[in-house]
Every structure is written in structure tokens, then in C-alpha cells.
């Protein structure tokens, strides 16, 4: 090989390497959450591409939601979910971020709501690994460790490497909350031997807990149900009622239960679960008006008891008037009432696949 050929070959290789590096950098700049989600799953970028294919804008946002929620960065979750893409996982995290800021009922109707699946992601034989990986986040925040642990275990089971800090951290924390340090030890030791998780793990040993972390664990521990009930895998309302039976002040659990009742249009259950002294929202006012109107209960006493404002009553009357005028059609209601519970109750239809 002549010197000139060698030089040309060298230049070609250098250009190719630069192009490949540039392409990789561009990819990372465009899909930062894809890389972070891969890291949470303990796999490299190339392994992630092999396992999940090439990302697109929608999957990048979905992975961003999962990454930020695992880090409990709710502002970032809210920002990523701000654009309503009519996707279940987007709604799930939108609702969760709102709930973490005490705004679940207030913002519920502002967004696409695929019935109860926007509150609790279904974990079953038809669920994707990604959905399963995300499903436990809400249970962890609600304080229900049995399902938080189960979903972390299942998320890990269906992940490409069958491990990953996303799951191991959650498994460690669920057991720290329940006080099972023997189980937590297993996960903390693995994390301690992973450079990216070493510091996180070391801070979770009980004798290393900061006052803030101790308080976090104690707050979560206070939410644990004290009544043992054997329940099925998909009995969210029953679980929430068991949680509330032990801790009536768990407002997040109460709001999730009430919103579950409302998204499934079960007003009888809603009225049974609703205690106006514990939580208030315009959403609940709207739902109560449908119930009271159907039961002949439109009285001042009821309005006062359920904290229903005169403005809400006036709007409800207007909604009913237009509804009747149009023979039950929603064509003249959507603009003004499209984000009301009344509109959802009368016009939202469950997708067949739901």
C-alpha cells in the first residue's frame, strides 16, 4: 500500500469516525431521555435501540415522564405532560404530577382521560413492559407498598437486562418504608456496587439517614394500611378504601378514589366515598350536582353540606337547559362545558379497547 493510499484511507476513516460521533451526539441531543431511561434499565444505548427500537418524539416524552417520575421531579413531569398527546401514559403521569401538588381533581377534566386507566396503568398479560415499568409509581406515592414492590419487581422482570437502578432503588425504598431492612439490604448492596448508584445507596442505610430522609420514610410509613386484607391484583378502589380505613387523612388516596369513582361514572360509589370535610374541588361540586339532581336532592342544605357554590349551580342549570334544548346533544355544550365533569359524564365514551 502506497503512502498516499494510506493517507487517503486514514482521512476516510477519520471522517467516518467523526461522522459517527457526530451522529451519536445528535442522537443524544435529540433523545436525552431515551439515554437516561436506558441507564435506569442498566443497558447501553445500543442495547436500548435493540430492545426498544429507534425512539420517536412520543416515546421520548413517555420515557422522560418515567425518568423524571422515578426521580420524583414533579415539576419536570408536569412540564413534559403539559402537551396533551391523548396517550394513557401521558395522562397517568399528568394526573400523578397534579396529585403530588394537591391538584388532581382540580385539573382532571383539563386533559384526556381514558377512564380509570389514566389513574392506574393496567398490569396484565396485554400490558407492555414500559407500562408495567411505570405502573408502580402511583402506588409508591400513594403509600401502598405491596403493589409498588410488585410493580417494581415486574418492571425489572420484563426489562431487557432483568435489572436496573430504576427498579432496584424502588425495591430498596419500598422495603425501607415497610421496615424490612433484610430485604432492602439485598438491593442496597447491589446498588452500592454500581458507580452511578453508590452514593444514593449509602445514604439509604438506616444509620446514615439524614433528618429529611428519615422524615420521608416516616411519612410514607404512616400511610401503610394497618388492616390486612387479601385482595385481587386489579382492585384499586378496594385498596384505596383499605388505605383510607387506616389513614382517613391520606388526601391523595382520597382524591384518587374519588376521581376513580368519577372517571368510571360510578356516582353512588362517589357519594359513599366523598367526605366534603376532607377534600374540596369544583370537580366534586359538579359531580354532586348530577347526583343530587337525579335523586331529587337539590336543596340548600345539601348545597351547603357539599360546599356547592351558587356559581356552580348556575352553570349546571345552564348546562341542563342547553342539554335539554338540543335533545341530549353535546354540539352546543363542548365549547363552554367541554372541560366540566357534566360533559364527561354525559358524553365521554369508553374506547372499545378499554
Amino acid at each position, binding site marked *: 500500500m502506497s503512502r498516499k493510499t494510506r493517507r487517503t484511507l486514514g482521512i476516510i476513516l477519520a471522517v467516518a469516525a467523526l461522522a459517527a460521533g457526530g451522529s451519536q451526539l445528535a442522537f443524544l441531543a435529540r433523545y436525552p431521555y431515551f439515554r437516561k431511561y436506558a441507564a435506569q434499565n442498566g443497558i447501553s444505548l445500543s442495547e436500548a435501540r435493540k430492545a426498544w427500537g429507534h425512539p420517536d418524539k412520543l416515546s421520548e416524552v413517555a420515557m422522560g415522564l418515567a425518568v423524571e417520575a422515578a426521580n420524583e421531579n414533579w415539576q419536570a413531569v408536569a412540564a413534559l405532560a403539559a402537551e396533551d398527546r391523548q396517550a394513557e401514559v401521558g395522562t397517568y403521569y399528568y394526573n400523578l404530577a397534579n396529585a403530588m401538588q394537591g391538584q388532581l381533581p382540580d385539573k382532571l377534566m383539563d386533559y384526556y382521560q381514558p377512564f380509570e386507566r389514566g389513574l392506574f396503568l393496567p398490569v396484565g398479560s396485554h400490558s407492555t413492559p414500559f407500562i408495567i415499568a411505570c405502573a408502580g409509581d402511583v402506588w409508591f406515592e400513594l403509600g401502598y407498598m405491596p403493589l409498588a414492590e*410488585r410493580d417494581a419487581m415486574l418492571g425489572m422482570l420484563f426489562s431487557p437486562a432483568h435489572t436496573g437502578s430504576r427498579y432496584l432503588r424502588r425495591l430498596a425504598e419500598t422495603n425501607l418504608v415497610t421496615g424490612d431492612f433484610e430485604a432492602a439490604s439485598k438491593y442496597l448492596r447491589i446498588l452500592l456496587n454500581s458507580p452511578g448508584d453508590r452514593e444514593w445507596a449509602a445514604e439509604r442505610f438506616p444509620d446514615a439517614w439524614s433528618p429529611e430522609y428519615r422524615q420521608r420514610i416516616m411519612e410514607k410509613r404512616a400511610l401503610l394500611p394497618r388492616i390486612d386484607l387479601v385482595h385481587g391484583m386489579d382492585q384499586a378502589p378496594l385498596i384505596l378504601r383499605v388505605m383510607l380505613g387506616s389513614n382517613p387523612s391520606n388526601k391523595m388516596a382520597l382524591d384518587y378514589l374519588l376521581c376513580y369513582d368519577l372517571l368510571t361514572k360510578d356516582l353512588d360509589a362517589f357519594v359513599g366515598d366523598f367526605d366534603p370535610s376532607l377534600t374540596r374541588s369544583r370537580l366534586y361540586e359538579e359531580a354532586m350536582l348530577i347526583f343530587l339532581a337525579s335523586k331529587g336532592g337539590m336543596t340548600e342544605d345539601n348545597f351547603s353540606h357539599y360546599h356547592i357554590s351558587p356559581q356552580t349551580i348556575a352553570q349546571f342549570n345552564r348546562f341542563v337547559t342547553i342539554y335539554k334544548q338540543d335533545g341530549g346533544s353535546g354540539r352546543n355544550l363542548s365549547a363552554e362545558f367541554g372541560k366540566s365533569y357534566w360533559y364527561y359524564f354525559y358524553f365521554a365514551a369508553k374506547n372499545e379497547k378499554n
Partner: protein
Amino acid sequence: MRRTDAILCGLSVLALFLLLACGREYDVRPSGTGTDRTSVIFPNYQDVTIPCNIAPLNFYYTDPAGARYATTFTAGSVSFTVKGREVVWKDRNWRRLLEAAAGNDIEVVSAWREGDIPVSFRWKIHVSPDNIDPYLTYRLIEPGFEVWDDLEIIERHLESFETRAISDWRNTGNRCMNCHIHAQGRGDLSMFYLRGEGGGAILNRDGKLRKLTLKDSLMISPTVYGEIHPDGRFGVFSTNIIVPAMHSAGGRRMEVFDTASDLCVADFDANKMLIFPETARKETFETFPVFSADGQSVYYCTAQARQLPAEVELMRYSLVRIPFDAETGTLGGPADTVWSAAAHGGSACHPKASPDGRWLLFTVAAYGTFPINHRECNLFMLDLRTGEPVSLDLVNDDKSDTYHSWSSDSKWFVFASKRGDGMFGKPYFSHIAEDGTVTRPFLLPQKDPHYYDKMLRSFNVPDLGNAPVRFDAREIGRILKEVPAEQFE
């Protein structure tokens, strides 16, 4: 800077980096009281009894503050000292030590420094002259709440660290497979299930493999738990409607219960399923059937049907025995109670008779029929010659101990224990002497002493075999794809 200096400097930085990267030891924290590593060494081989054909007992010291470890092993005139936190044997040295110690003890001195303070203690490993069956099969599964991914059934050679898959997800389209069981520890008579479409019970009889659909129209489900008769012609099985559920409190995690269960017999020669009135009643549940060593009886667990899940904590299974006619495959009746749930206030599961007919090993939980998530679940043994219980105080621990099996000579048994972390089952072995003395169990040794630290799967249903099974995962994959399942009627 001269060019050579620059190169040297670069090499030094690289060497330092490599030293730091390679020199980092496995961090053994957390350890001590309240963790899953309470003993000074892990696995804790202090005062255990081991067979004289077992693979090297590699272990590590769990004290994160210790340094300059030296461990000296002595048996007769043979002595070895291993330096370092990790005690990893050269196979040749371990064999020499075992040979010298057979029937006696290995004396061990552990010495290290805590800062400037020297620490040492002495302990022993008892070496039984009795060999253990050299093969162990187990399913590796994540504790995943009744779902699975990437399952495999492994056969481990206990005299070394060699393993091979005898069925795996790669060759079976990632399908569910249930655990592999030997009949009386025989490598030439065993079975397991491949679930799902095109699957079936894989029967290994005299090294010949068959795929069987063990179901007829009268059965409430396909067969679930069971065992092969010592003669190989029959199998006895339960059929179960299994419901998974969760506990909301108490750290019990998952609860699995049956809403119905019956027994049946499979005739492998006539391709027939046999059902009998005594063991197919709606008002009673029957499960976990196994043959007695002589094949003249069947042991199983039974309980009265109840309202479930509301009364799940009242479901207590007794252990009973029913005659079996090995000529016709007929289960007789009525059943005799061997261990009464009411009298003992517990629930019996997974009976296993030793191949010599002397012992009956089973598990006892507070209630229910799925003990792996019951911390209180312990092994229980009866001497069938006297009907008296055998003390297993040295065997049981504070977490679930279950899924046991016997070696073909009835001198060793293996079981899966969740001791320690409470989540992951690991295989432990104990020896039983003629007088009923049972020894402290030892954990299956691994080449890497930190193997169990990193392991995120359970060893499910460890089962001893006196010979390797004569098939592998590729063969099972071929049978799944190419061999139609034989129908039973």
C-alpha cells in the same frame, strides 16, 4: 517535556486508572444484625455438614471494617491457608482437603485485623462420608408474582460449578415452564411441564422423552403438582384452580390459594387419566400428591372447602395417605390422617417420602397452600417407622423453608430457603443419619462467593438426581416444535 516523559506520564495515569478500576473490591455492606448478612462469613459454613463430593465452599467475610484476612483449613496432615476477604478455592486443593477430612472435621481458623486489633476465631466444617447425588435441577425464576420472562431449568453438577440448561426460554419461545422433578432421585425418570399452546408434560422415562396432554374433560384443570410412581407407569397429580392475590399489610406480600382442587392418576402406558370419587369431591380440596417409597400409597394434603378469599387464613390442610393399587392405578379409600391440621394448628404442604420409605418431609405454614411467601413456613419431618416427629431445629430459619427433595439414598435432602433477604429462594442441603440426627444445612456453593449478592432470581424447586438427565434445552425445543402432544382420555 520530552516525548518519552510524556509517554511515561500517560502510562502512569493509565496504570493508576486501571489499578483503581480493577482494585475495587466488592462492597459487602450492609452487613450485621438486622441485615441479610448477619454471620461473619457468607455463605455461613460454620458447623455445617457437607458431603465428601461437594464443590469447593467459597465464601467471603462480611465485616466491612476488617482487613488482612487469613483463613487456615486443616484436616489431618493436610493444611491450606487462603488469604483475603474472599476465600476462593483451587479445585485440586479442595479435593485434597475433602479426601483428608472424609468422615471427620475440617478445622478452620479465621484471622483478620479490625484496625490495629487482631481478631480470630475457630470453627469447623463436618465432612460426611456419605456422598450426595451429584446433580441438582432447579428453575431460575424472578419472584415475579405469577408471571415470568426468560425462564430456564438448570442442571447443576454438585461436584463442580458446571451448569447446563435442560430447558430454557431461548428454545421454547419464552414460554412458561414448571419445575423439573426426578422420581426418587433418578436421572432416567423425571418430568416437567411446558405450558401454553403446543406444550405439555415432558416425561423422561428411561431416557426417552414424550410430550403428554394430561387432561380430560372431567378434570377441573390440567395437572399441576404431582409425582411419578417408582415403577414409571403411573403418575399421580392434582388439578387446581389457582388464584393469586395480595396482602395489604403484614409484609406477607402475595397469597396464592386454590378455589378447587382434586386428584387424578395418569396411566402413561394406556394414555388414560383416572379420577376417583374419594379424591374428586367439591366439598374438600386435595393437592400435592406423592407416592410412598414402596408405591403402595399416595400421600396428599386435604382441607375442607371454604369461602375464599375471605376465609383464606382458616384454610388448613391435613396430610393424609390413601392406598394405591400399582397394578390398576386405582386410588382406594378412605384416607388415613398422617398429620392433622386441627391438632397442630397449621397447614401441611409438599409432602415428600424418602426413597427408602423411612422419612416423610413436608412443610407447615400457618395456613394456606402456597408457603413460599409465608415467613413462618418451616420444614417438618416424620419418622414413618414410629410416626414420631424428627427435630429440624437446626434446619429451619425465620423465613420460608420449603420445596424440598430427597437424594436417592435418603441420606440428604435439599430445600429452598428465603432466609436472609426473604425474597429469593436459595438451595440448602442437610444430612440425616440413621438415628434421625439432622445437620445444620449448607448453601449451594458457587464459584463466585458474591454470586448470591448479585442474584436476582430464585432457585425454585431444587431437586436432586443421581445421574444427569439425558436431554438438554435444544432437545426440548425440538420436541416442542416437532413432536405432537399425546392425548390422554
